[in-house]
């Protein structure tokens, strides 16, 4: 037990240091390659290096590989191996998307295909626990849903990455919620280890990155960072048996992505959208009056009055924090139903 806690603390510290070390290096590299974008929400529109979220993905991958050597048993090693393969593939998709944009349909489609090993190797427990009911036996349907989970969470992460620190800050809260939930829900030891290790690695990696990505951002995550972060949460949900808790914690993000898809009538790239959700003038964000524009979380927040970027990010994090509290209440309800 003590050995496990030492490993967890080491993973947290190491992932934070790796991410903190890699972020400025990758930012410098991206700037030298001309991979920069304008921060349009600022008055002076500064040029910021993009795709620096690669630091988060690298840090997670290194820690997952290290985890293999400390894997307590074969089940944990098998789960970590699948997580490494999927994370690596999603990171490559993110890099390709950052340099040669993929279509809005192709991206989640590829990630779904990448997730097929989850269903092929079946090393997760297909008995998700939900409040009131307890464990649900869905041994066949579970695998069909599981291969969609990574695509849904990575897409939700991608769509919330619109303001300084909105994605990294939100997932810091969600990762912390996942970690706390493992002490509430009675999980089997293998799932508890994966959930704790995965949550702490994600938390540490994101924290090292968030220091540079928070308002006013010095780096942008790009699709590389947002897709990898979302994929990692999806994998923690499946292999850490935290499906329901993490769905509730991610409600505002899922709400954001589904309402965008619903309001524009399917998956579309930004350039294909006829109306924008918000307009920016002198660093202030105004809601679009066009009802055909996508209904995003940011648009909903500014709908009753224009705000600056910092205020909106603060509001997003408050809403995510609130859903994380609901997630922990759900965890208590699951505990009650399993007793």
């Amino acid at each position: 037990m003590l050995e496990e806690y030492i490993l967890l603390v080491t993973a947290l510290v190491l992932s934070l240091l790796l991410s903190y070390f890699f972020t400025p290096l990758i930012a410098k590299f991206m700037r030298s390659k001309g991979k920069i974008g304008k921060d349009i929400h600022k008055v002076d529109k500064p040029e910021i290096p993009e795709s620096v979220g690669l630091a988060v993905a690298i840090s997670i991958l290194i820690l997952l590989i290290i985890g293999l050597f400390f894997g307590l048993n074969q089940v944990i090693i098998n789960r970590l191996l699948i997580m490494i393969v999927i994370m690596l593939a999603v990171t490559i998709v993110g890099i390709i998307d950052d340099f040669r944009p993929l279509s809005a349909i192709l991206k989640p489609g590829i990630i779904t295909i990448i997730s097929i090993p989850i269903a092929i190797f079946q090393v997760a427990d297909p008995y998700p626990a939900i409040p009131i009911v307890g464990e649900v036996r869905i041994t066949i349907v579970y695998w069909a849903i599981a291969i969609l989970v990574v695509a849904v969470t990575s897409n939700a992460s991608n769509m919330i990455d619109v303001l300084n620190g909105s994605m990294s800050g939100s997932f810091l809260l969600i990762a912390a919620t996942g970690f706390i939930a493992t002490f509430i829900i009675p999980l089997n030891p293998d799932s508890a280890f994966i959930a704790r290790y995965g949550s702490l690695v994600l938390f540490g990696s994101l924290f090292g990155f968030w220091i540079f990505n928070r308002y006013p951002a010095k780096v942008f995550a790009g699709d590389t960072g947002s897709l990898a972060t979302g994929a990692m949460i999806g994998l923690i949900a499946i292999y850490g048996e935290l499906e329901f808790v993490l769905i509730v914690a991610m409600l505002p993000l899922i709400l954001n992505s589904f309402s965008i898809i619903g309001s524009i009538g399917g998956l579309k790239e930004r350039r294909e959208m006829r109306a924008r959700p918000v307009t920016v003038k002198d660093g202030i964000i105004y809601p679009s009056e066009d009802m055909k524009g996508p209904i995003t979380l940011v648009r909903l927040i500014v709908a009753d009055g224009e705000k600056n970027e910092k205020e909106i990010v603060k509001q997003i994090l408050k809403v995510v924090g609130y859903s994380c509290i609901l997630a922990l209440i759900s965890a208590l309800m699951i505990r009650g139903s399993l007793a």
Partner: protein
Amino acid sequence: MNLKSILNPEPLYMVITTIWLVLIGLCGIIALLVVPINYASIEYSILVSVLKVIAAGVAIAIWLITWYRFLVIILIYKMSKNNHLESESIN
């Protein structure tokens, strides 16, 4: 958190709370109506399994549609409170 924010909470909290309660309610419905169906006593267990999955799928679809409609209402409500937009549309 000041008194003003407590008395006039952000409608998004209400949306998330409602969505969460509906989700918990769905779990309750599953517990009451779906779980008690006993496989051993039913001849067509595969058919029952498929029907259960279809029922769950329909419930999730209704949940998502309700959610989206709710957001549209919140957006219209919040925009109606925005004096800036009102004055612009009048002008």
